[in-house]
């Protein structure tokens, strides 16, 4: 019977299926509507631009992380990698006085190198990705402090550009959109992406089908490192300064964004659009709580609840659709 049931394809637009597949999006819409009713300040162009800028760093970081999570890994080092990349790129231009135009490339290379190391630890050293990236979280933060000697370094002009405005449009939003497109394309239309899904869905099957599992692991961590680096440079660019504590703890937000967006931590499932929505959910909540002048302490409580409810809703929804 299943063969019969399964061959049936939806006729026309299936609202129920759409809602079921876009739980986070629905949640986001509800959230925005609630805020729109609660305060007139939410739906102003200026505020929406704010949200866009604010979401950019976590979202870009989370795009890279999506690859790792799809491949059934986790990358706890993204916050530290963001800091080191921003720091080295600033050191390069400001302290070492090397050509500032290259600083972004240098930062991205640092991110790729960090990803390479984490990937190698997990692919060749056979460390669980949780441990490999936990070790890197500490190591890379330590290196950031060593490079900076614990002091902020001014960013180069090209990094500052990443945090500035281009006419009326803030550069972080442009970078965000481009990153989403590139990440989405790579994840869905290229062999790199498909291989990540296969490895995450069933590593052994992937291996037996001739997919180079180790290389796939290396690749997703390098991608994660590069996006983390980009995110770190946007952040530093916005502050015109690379801080030794930059993006500390952001890994948890980025992971939350990916998971709220519908990726499964057990691998094999994930979408860049979902991750973007997940990051937006977090940013809109933070923004809204500030607009509504909710006390800083209660904000943390509310954000935790939202993470739980958003993912809980997603789990519930999926269960109900399957059967």
């Amino acid at each position, binding site marked *: 019977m299943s063969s019969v049931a399964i061959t049936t394809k939806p006729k026309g637009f299936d609202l129920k299926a759409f809602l079921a597949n876009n739980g986070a999006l629905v949640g986001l819409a509800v959230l925005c509507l609630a805020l729109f009713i609660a305060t007139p300040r939410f739906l102003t162009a200026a505020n929406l631009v704010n949200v866009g800028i*604010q979401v950019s760093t976590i979202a870009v970081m989370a795009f890279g992380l999506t690859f790792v999570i799809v491949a059934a890994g986790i990358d706890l080092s993204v916050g530290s990698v963001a800091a080191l990349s921003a720091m080295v790129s600033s050191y390069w231009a400001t302290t070492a006085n090397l050509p500032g135009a290259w600083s972004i490339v240098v930062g991205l290379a640092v991110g790729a190198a960090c990803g390479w190391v984490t990937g190698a630890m997990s692919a060749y050293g056979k460390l669980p990705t949780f441990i490999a990236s936990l070790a890197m979280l500490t190591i890379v933060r330590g290196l950031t402090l060593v490079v900076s000697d614990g002091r902020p370094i001014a960013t180069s002009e090209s990094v500052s550009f990443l945090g500035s405005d281009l006419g009326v449009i803030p550069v972080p939003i442009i970078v965000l959109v481009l990153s989403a497109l590139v990440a989405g394309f790579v994840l869905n239309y290229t062999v790199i992406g498909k291989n990540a899904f296969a490895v995450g869905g069933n590593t052994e099957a992937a291996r037996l089908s001739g997919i180079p599992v180790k290389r796939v692991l290396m690749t997703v961590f390098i991608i994660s490192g590069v996006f983390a680096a980009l995110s770190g440079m946007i*952040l530093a660019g916005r502050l015109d300064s690379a801080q030794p504590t930059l993006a500390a703890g952001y890994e948890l937000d980025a992971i939350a964004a990916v998971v709220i967006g519908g990726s499964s931590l057990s691998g094999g499932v994930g979408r860049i659009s979902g991750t973007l929505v997940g990051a937006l959910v977090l940013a809109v909540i933070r923004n809204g709580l500030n607009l509504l002048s909710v006390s*800083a302490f209660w904000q943390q409580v509310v954000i935790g609840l939202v993470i739980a409810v958003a993912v809980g809703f997603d789990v519930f929804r999926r269960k109900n659709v399957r059967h």
Partner: protein
Amino acid sequence: GETSAEGGKVTMAISTLNNPFFVDVRDGAKEEAAKSGIELNVVDAQNDSATQANQLATAATDGSVGVIINAVDSDAASAALAPVVSAKLPIVAVDRSVGETKVASFVASDNVAGGEQAAKALAEKLGGKGKIIILEGVPGASSTNERGEGFDKGLAAYPDIEVVSSQPANYDRAKALDVATNLLQGNPDVAGVLAMNDEMALGAIQALGDKAGKSVNVVGFDGTDDGFKAVASGKLLATIAQNPAELGRQSVQMAAKVLNGESVEADVAVAVDTVNAKNISEYTK
């Protein structure tokens, strides 16, 4: 300006509320705001410059008529304040400077001077010689750098005092306990501890146990309630008392004045005092 303070919303962006010092700053500010009829919206950056940047951007568009900032990091604050500057809102900085950004008023204690006073208090007690260790604040925070500068200045007059180790304990008592314990283990003959705030000084006192106030002297910074208690009990040699509630009150006063179109001083220096066994009774009532 054409606005008045009465009834307007002012956003106060604080570096972190996980530290009693800033809770006092906030409370002083709230008190003053209630008096002058200002709606004070306090946001907490949890010591993250980027979070602070986000909060300032929101403040620029959410109907606030003015901003009071206690920067996480002085250099980064400049860029973070850009949206507030372009929204032409008046800015008052409190406790920490904000780089090049032009502010209506800067209300602060003099951290360099305070650092110098702290160093002097310890050095004199040690008779100008001996080994000491330094517990630093959050790396990169301007108060860390400024107090460090003050320590250096103060110690310059005492060439026989040797700083055997200087390590960050992030203004955190628990962190300071472990760091101090370990440093003391490596340097058992230390005679003094110079801590950049009272929380860390108290952590060091725990690490020292009975030695605190006897064979090893500790100096803190801030003048928190716990700090004063430790001075009174003789465990803490001295603390450089800031008056955080006063910092908060003054910052709101300055903001109110600007909003009402009055003129204000560009720099409001709130006094720091060296509080030790001699004058402690004036501070504890």
